[in-house]
């Protein structure tokens, strides 16, 4: 800083000092809940990060035995054999496979059914282990790679389910699954 600049800033600083009042120097401690709130928010931010790391670990373990399928930047993180067994609406002999892959940094679910269904409104779902909570991935198309909703915890929704739906405008699961399988790393 040049001498002139220093002098100019001095003048500002001196003027500021002259404006200081006694009130400016009387500080009050914040109430205790302020620190409690800060600590809570920091811990939950850290915990959130840790949970993400935890989800990544079981999938990362699968990378040790990864298989390249398709373009070189693709990795299979988990897979499931699908079948109609135990499903009243499931056509006899229907089988299939689902693969959870990472392609170019994105998580995708690829589902193939054999034989590929030719009619009916089919819908693809991810269910939790108890088959009680559902996430719809949309209209089922054989062999299509479905991007997963961001933030989904695949460990929490490992059951791949294909259902046959009536065209009644009711978005809930019809209860008529034709194929199901559990993703495993």
């Amino acid at each position, binding site marked *: 800083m040049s001498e002139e600049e220093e002098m100019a*800033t*001095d003048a500002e*600083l*001196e003027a*500021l*000092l*002259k*404006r*200081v*009042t006694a*009130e*400016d*120097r*009387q*500080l*009050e*401690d*914040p*109430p205790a*809940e*302020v*620190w409690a*709130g*800060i*600590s809570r*928010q*920091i*811990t939950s*931010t850290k915990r959130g990060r840790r949970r993400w790391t935890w989800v990544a670990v079981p999938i990362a373990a699968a990378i040790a035995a990864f298989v390249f399928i398709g373009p070189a930047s693709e990795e299979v993180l988990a897979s499931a054999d699908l079948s109609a067994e135990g499903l009243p609406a499931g056509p006899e002999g229907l089988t299939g496979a689902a693969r959870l892959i990472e392609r170019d940094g994105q998580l995708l679910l690829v589902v193939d059914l054999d034989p590929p269904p030719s009619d009916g409104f089919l819908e693809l779902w991810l269910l939790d282990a108890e088959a009680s909570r559902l996430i719809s991935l949309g209209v089922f198309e054989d062999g299509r790679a479905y991007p997963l909703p961001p933030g989904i915890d695949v460990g929490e929704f490992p059951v791949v389910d294909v259902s046959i739906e009536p065209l009644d405008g009711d978005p809930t699961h019809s209860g008529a699954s034709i194929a199901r399988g559990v993703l495993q790393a």
Partner: protein
Amino acid sequence: MTDSRLVEAFVAGDELGIKALYERYGGLVFTYCVRTVGRDAAADLTQEVFVASWKNRHQYDPEAGNLAAWLMGIARNKVKDELRRRSRRPQIVTDEMPPLPAVDNADDIGDRMLVASLLDELTPRARQNVELAFIEDLTHEQISEKTGTPLGTVKSDIRRSLDFLRRHLKEAP
């Protein structure tokens, strides 16, 4: 905790660091908020300031500016945002709320409170000389007479104190 250790602990990001920062400057930030946005909003805003400072700790550059000034910069922005938000809404004025200061008044209160807190970091003699010069408005000769300190010492105390204050008022960009 000394200044450089405080900065180190804070940037490291663990709870000990943010706690040390809060213990050192929590009163300053809270009182600033009480005086600008009122007591009702001050606790929440203070919390937001410290959480934001922790989340953005990597943006703080110790070479570029003083940590207290950086922290008060965060506080100032949040206060001004809140004041601007309020000025767009019809207000029910209660006895508890201070009259709404203009947004630039919030700047001046922040500047004054920050420099006042820095005075506490001067040596007792230098602080006294600065107070006598600028708050009591005495001339250097009057200070020398009043305190028995040689005139040259008074002048150099004030010179060094102003340099110190200027350095520490500089916010990191």
